[in-house]
């Protein structure tokens, strides 16, 4: 029997050990009752009490902390637990297509229109815009300051492939909305992106990271990069990069939100997602967006639709004043409905 007690001691030891790691891991910081208060708030129990609304969004919207700023306002208004997962636009759209998110919040009109047309999303509304920028070292080694974006990219490509000293370009390279916008400029400048830009030399660096990390990489490497204005402004103090190009119609950046739709999606989730959309386009939130960042950066990071509706090719700016009420896609999904 003694032998068995040794065995049970061993099992007890495992439990104690595991528990010990737990406790010591917590208390190494500081002992005290505060630890228990932390442990007693596991997110699982909170999630049971309130309905959850999962938002798939882009790194550029998340990294500026706009959503952190709006989240508590919406949560208190609707007694809902907002959960935000921030990924590149490409990944966010994939998550939404699989039905793993309830709301999609991105900035890539061409991809959004396909998403809605394919029946994965309803109630697309544009709620804000800003501009993309080409930023780079202030010395501007490629001499592209104040060119049009297309001209600048052509020059960068030329000097980059000629190995001109100091000419580097860091691309997101992650199928994000920003990356999509960058590729659109390459294509407007008559470059085939996959054959002539990617792997065209050491000058073109594909980061495969979020916007903030890409900006930091460009700053470290004294390279140019293509960024949205909001993320750039919020990171500016940590960067040795200045705006090189900020004018040009292809630099417009439109943010839109839509409800994820699929047959399995419960109607309550769709309604809550619609509530979130209506919250974003409401006068109060639009005013909040217009003020967001003014105190810290001297200018707003986003221009809400209520302040200015940008001019863009048809379809890029979605509906913005109409309340989101649809619970399923229109009966006949055709090209005409997708383009209105």
């Amino acid at each position, binding site marked *: 029997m003694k032998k068995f007690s040794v065995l049970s001691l061993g099992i007890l030891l495992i439990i104690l050990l595991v528990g010990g790691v737990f406790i010591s*891991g917590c208390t190494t910081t500081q002992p005290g009752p505060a630890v228990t208060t*932390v442990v007693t708030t596991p997110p699982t129990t909170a999630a049971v009490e309130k309905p959850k609304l999962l938002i798939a969004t882009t790194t550029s919207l998340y990294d500026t902390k706009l959503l952190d700023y709006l989240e508590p306002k919406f949560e208190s208004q609707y007694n809902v637990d907002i*959960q935000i997962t921030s990924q590149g636009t490409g990944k966010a759209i994939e998550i939404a297509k*699989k039905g793993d998110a309830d709301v999609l919040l991105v900035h890539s009109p061409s991809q959004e229109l396909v998403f809605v047309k394919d029946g994965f999303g309803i109630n697309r509304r544009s709620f804000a815009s800003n501009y993309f920028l080409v930023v780079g070292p202030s010395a501007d080694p490629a001499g592209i300051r104040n060119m049009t974006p297309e001209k600048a990219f052509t020059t960068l490509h030329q000097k980059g492939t000629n190995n001109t000293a100091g000419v580097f370009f860091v691309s997101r390279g992650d199928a994000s909305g920003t990356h999509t916008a960058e590729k659109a400029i390459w294509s407007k400048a008559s470059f085939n992106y996959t054959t002539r830009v990617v792997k065209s030399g050491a000058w073109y660096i594909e980061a495969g990271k979020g916007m903030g990390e890409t900006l930091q990489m460009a700053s470290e490497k004294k390279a140019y990069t293509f960024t949205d204005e909001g993320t750039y402004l919020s990171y500016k103090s940590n960067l040795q990069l200045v705006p090189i190009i900020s004018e040009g119609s292809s630099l417009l950046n439109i943010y839109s939100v839509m409800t994820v739709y699929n047959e399995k999606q419960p109607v309550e989730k769709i309604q809550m997602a619609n509530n979130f959309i209506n919250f974003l386009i409401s006068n109060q939130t639009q005013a909040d967006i217009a003020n967001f960042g003014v105190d810290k950066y001297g200018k707003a990071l986003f221009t809400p639709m209520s302040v200015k509706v940008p001019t863009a090719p048809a379809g890029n700016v979605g509906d913005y004043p109409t309340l989101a009420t649809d619970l399923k896609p229109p009966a006949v999904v055709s090209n005409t409905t997708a383009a209105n």
Partner: protein
Amino acid sequence: MSEIVSGFFQAVNLIVTLNPEVMQIAALSLFISLAATVIAATIAIPLGGLIHFHEFRGKRMLIVLIQTLYSVPTVVVGLVLYLLLSRSGPLGIFGLLFTPEGMIVGQTVLIIPILTGLVIASLGGIDRNISDTLISLGATSFQTIVQIVKEARLAILSAVVLGFGRAISEVGVAMMIGGNIRGATRVLTTAIALQTGIGDFPFSIALGLILLLIALVVVIIMNLITSGLSVETQQVLGGPRT
């Protein structure tokens, strides 16, 4: 350099003042990885025993396979589980994607091979003479198994600690299955990745320090066990047993 120093001091401040967000992230990390370790141990220890004590065709192959899975990249486990747990995937009805429970499942799957493999190795490490002696002394096969497991318990324990270390330090499963949702699935590793991306270095350093503290505790426990093991081994090799 000054950035590192000031970041370090801010980090210490965040920890000492028990910054609620830092504490919440650390507690969630521990909760998830501990749960995964306990579940994985519950599965892997009997499984390892089953494999060790039975002779069957393909046993060697199976062990090689398990050992290969030691080094399965966490992002691969993350990807496979993402596809399985997605609402449109075969296990979608459970709604585990982007939840702590889903992350526990992911980390459990991740560390089961390493635990099973190390349990088999621990049992195999027990001197063959012991089982022969036990049988010659008239022990039943059940008694033999109990005795051998007992002899190997410290090695098994260190395997469990190692599994925990892998679980709490991994980022692939946590990012892909958890989604790094603030207040829900954000753990130490994914938070460090995010905050570094955002440029909030003090916060990253604070979380990194906590992760290191946890690693330190794990290493200390490992050392305690290993020193215990050598005493045990000495006993096995002829020391007095009562």
